[in-house]
């Protein structure tokens, strides 16, 4: 009966038990392994040395001594078929002409890992929930911010308009009754009010765009029509800075469905920026070109250029480059963000190419096919 029981126990160890069983010859080569060892250890374990299976970073283990220790357990980390080492508690038993090595799993480590994985999974799920919740709250706050921005800008516009009108009346009607000093003060009020009006308009634009209320009114227009309307303003800005504005976009009569006033806002912003970053005597180019798929407007300057790391944040709201404008003109950094939204709403792309010290070039590409489809109502 005892022999039968021993045989049954050995069969259990060799076939089913969650224990690594390896028989080793006198030189500690692996002679045979059980089912569990076959599934865990790397392929072709039989014939290799025990030392080749064990992870021994210090290369100092004495396997002959180790396998001669009877009755004590040794924690060994072994290489596995999955490539991820696993730790087992080994005991060594003498066999005729060799050794039987039995490795039991480190249940403490397993339990620890199990608990860690469960904890991490819980944490991950909670983080996913918190992230969705925080995102929803941020969207709500952003919506409130846009509403506030829109309302504040709208309410500021009227009193500012009154200031500008009455300031203009005094300037126009006072004639010689104003001293040079007082005329200068009134002109400064007029300049500051115009600047403020621009900021308020930008805020209104941002509020409208971010609320998803940017609606394009697409009407076929040519480059001549688009550029022609804004050219006098661009030239005035350039003349004030003694910058030469060179325009190569006035002979193109091919038509493309665009929201011309909004596109003009984009081009005006790009030209004004180019002028503001240029020194007297430098040149700014405004040009347009058709390729297979798009109409591409380009605005180039000879200014200080924009560092690579700053180019990415140029189109974000309030994201300005560190470069100073040449006449210290001020801006809140919304112009390019608005311009990009308008170009994107046209299905197009706005981007910059620049090398510091060698000027900058801004491109606005408008896809002709997509805009034709948008006009026909095939896509939004």
């Amino acid at each position, binding site marked *: 009966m005892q022999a039968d029981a021993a045989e049954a126990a050995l069969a259990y160890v060799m076939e089913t038990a969650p224990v690594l069983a390896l028989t080793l010859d006198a030189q500690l080569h692996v002679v045979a392994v059980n089912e569990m060892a076959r599934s865990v250890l790397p392929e072709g374990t039989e014939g290799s040395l025990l030392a080749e299976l064990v992870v021994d970073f210090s290369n100092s283990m004495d396997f002959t001594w180790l396998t001669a220790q009877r009755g004590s357990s040794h924690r060994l980390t072994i290489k596995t078929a999955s490539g991820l080492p696993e730790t087992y508690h080994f005991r060594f038993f003498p066999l005729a002409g060799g050794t039987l090595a039995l490795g039991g799993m480190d249940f403490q480590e397993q339990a620890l890992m*199990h608990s860690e994985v*469960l904890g991490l*999974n*819980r*944490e991950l*799920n*909670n983080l*996913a*929930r*918190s992230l*969705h*919740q925080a*995102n*929803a*709250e941020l*969207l*709500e706050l952003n919506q409130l911010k846009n509403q506030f921005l829109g309302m504040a800008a709208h309410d500021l516009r009227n009193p500012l308009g009154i200031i500008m009108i009455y300031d203009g009346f005094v300037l126009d009607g006072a004639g010689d009754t104003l001293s040079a000093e007082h005329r200068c003060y009134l002109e400064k009020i007029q300049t500051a009010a115009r600047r403020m009006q621009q900021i308020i308009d930008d805020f209104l634009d941002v509020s409208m765009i971010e609320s998803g209320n940017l609606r394009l009114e697409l009407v076929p227009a040519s480059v001549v029509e688009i550029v022609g309307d804004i050219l006098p303003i661009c030239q005035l800005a350039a003349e004030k800075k003694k910058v030469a504005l060179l325009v190569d976009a006035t002979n193109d009569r091919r038509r493309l469905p665009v929201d011309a006033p909004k596109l003009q806002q984009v081009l005006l912003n790009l030209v004004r920026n180019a002028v503001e970053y240029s020194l007297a005597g430098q040149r700014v180019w405004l040009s347009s070109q058709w390729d297979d798929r798009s109409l591409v407007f380009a605005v180039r300057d000879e200014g200080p250029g924009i560092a690579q790391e700053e180019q990415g944040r140029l189109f974000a709201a309030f994201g300005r480059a560190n470069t100073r404008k040449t006449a210290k003109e001020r801006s809140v950094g919304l112009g390019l963000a608005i311009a990009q939204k308008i170009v994107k709403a046209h299905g197009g792309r706005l981007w910059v190419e620049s090398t510091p010290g060698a000027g900058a070039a801004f491109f606005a590409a408008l896809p002709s096919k997509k805009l034709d489809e948008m006009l026909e109502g095939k896509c939004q």
Partner: protein
Amino acid sequence: MNEKSYRRYLNALIAGDQRQCQEIFEAWFAANPDLCHLYDGLVQRSLYEVGVLWERNQISVATEHLATAISEGLMNLIYPRLFKLPRVGKSAVVACSANEYHQIGGKMVADIFEANGWRGYFLGASTSPQELLGLIQGKCPDVVALSVAVHANLDAVLSLAETVRGAFADLPILVGGQAFLLGGRERAEQIAGVHYLASLAELEAWVIRHAG
């Protein structure tokens, strides 16, 4: 959705077949986009059944843990829609007691608040009193809900309710969870301002009643 699809879901859950569970979960929600119905009829029911199978040694603890992990992962699929629902301007803080690692019930409670336009802030498993009081201080919720799954944690959750009561005298406290199936309701309701809710449906009714 019928009993047959529930059985298919339960079998897939026990087999660890996340993909099939997801298909049934999504079909269930598409057929009736009522979160309480989904949680009550599919998620909670299946997990209670998994728990019973484990208690009877018919499945291993690993299978039970995998079923919980799959269920929680599926709940994440609802979140992109859940948090975008219109708000009623009220909020709840939901927590489990210290040493309570069965958090899925608490999370379902927080989600029921969200589904009804409340903000449901969930603190996760095993919440310390300090964490809970800190969040209440920060979020100024309209109600606190405490979830307990294991009966052995009942004392801890009642002690947590008393701590909240001590710090915030007028704040309503809701308690519930699987642990109360073995008793404890009377003890809970002896604490001033504590209400026991027996199911997600009862919770939803409470949330709707107090939305105004």
